[in-house]
């Protein structure tokens, strides 16, 4: 990543690709199971677990564990804090593009 003020201020927690994928998927779907998230993100069980735990610890997602047809089922939901973090991140990405467009127009 290049050295600029805009990219330096990015939320590193959701800048990582799998974590960004988890937050984005949960922004579109209110709740998703571990299996569904794994399919959408095409990642391994271990990878998804590690990144989901980091987001949970930061309060960006909420995890609920239960049973369905006697099988354990883990479900994820995006918290208000997580949604705000994604909105801020999106605004920053758009700002980078807008800055670049302005710079292009000035030349």
């Amino acid at each position, binding site marked *: *990543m290049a050295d600029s*003020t*805009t990219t330096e201020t990015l939320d590193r927690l959701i800048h990582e690709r799998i974590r960004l994928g988890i937050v984005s*998927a949960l922004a*579109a*779907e209110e709740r*998703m199971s571990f299996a569904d998230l794994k399919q959408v993100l095409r990642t391994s069980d271990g990878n998804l677990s590690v990144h989901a735990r980091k987001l949970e610890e930061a309060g960006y997602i909420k995890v609920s564990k239960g049973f369905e047809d006697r099988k354990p089922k883990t479900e994820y939901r995006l918290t208000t804090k997580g949604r705000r973090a994604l909105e801020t991140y*999106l605004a920053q990405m758009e700002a980078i593009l807008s800055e670049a467009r302005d710079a292009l127009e000035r030349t």
Partner: protein
Amino acid sequence: MSIPTHEDQRDAKETLAFIRRTMESASTYTAVSGWGLVAVGTVGLVAAWLAWSGNLGADLRIWIPAALLSVPIATAFNVTKARRLEVPIWTGAIRKVVWVMAPTLVAGGLLTIALAEQGTTGLLPGTWLALYGAGVTAGGTISVRAIRGMGVLFLILGAVALLRPEWGLPLLALGFGGLHVAIGLDIVLRHGG
């Protein structure tokens, strides 16, 4: 604020595209196969031709096997497309599509039995077209726009067929044959296969 570099710009574009792809993949069913719809439409046209040549109209011996045959054909084409696009096949989105469409299709099945028992088979084409249209329109809210449009057109054909039962067979051919083929080709051209 310093001016973002080309690399920043490229990263931002790529990241926004990734977010969009992920959100679509999580919430919508995009792996609808256009060729699958063309194949299902061909089954519809063959069924309509058989019904017309045998002067059978909405005969269940033709249309029920045609409907049953269409399910594995559409499934096979959709699975193939999903694999080619490397998108998940059985996700929450497809489960939602199935749940949203199932009630109207079940209602269609029950009405078919009831109307056939009453001997009012003239109303079957309109019932099938309207209820299939209702199901597809509802399912289309979780899929690509063309599917929703197809559902609305089926509903319109169903309404016409219910008001003009004597046009039943041509409308069945137009809907289950022509519409499937036309929308299928549109998806092939716009959404790649």
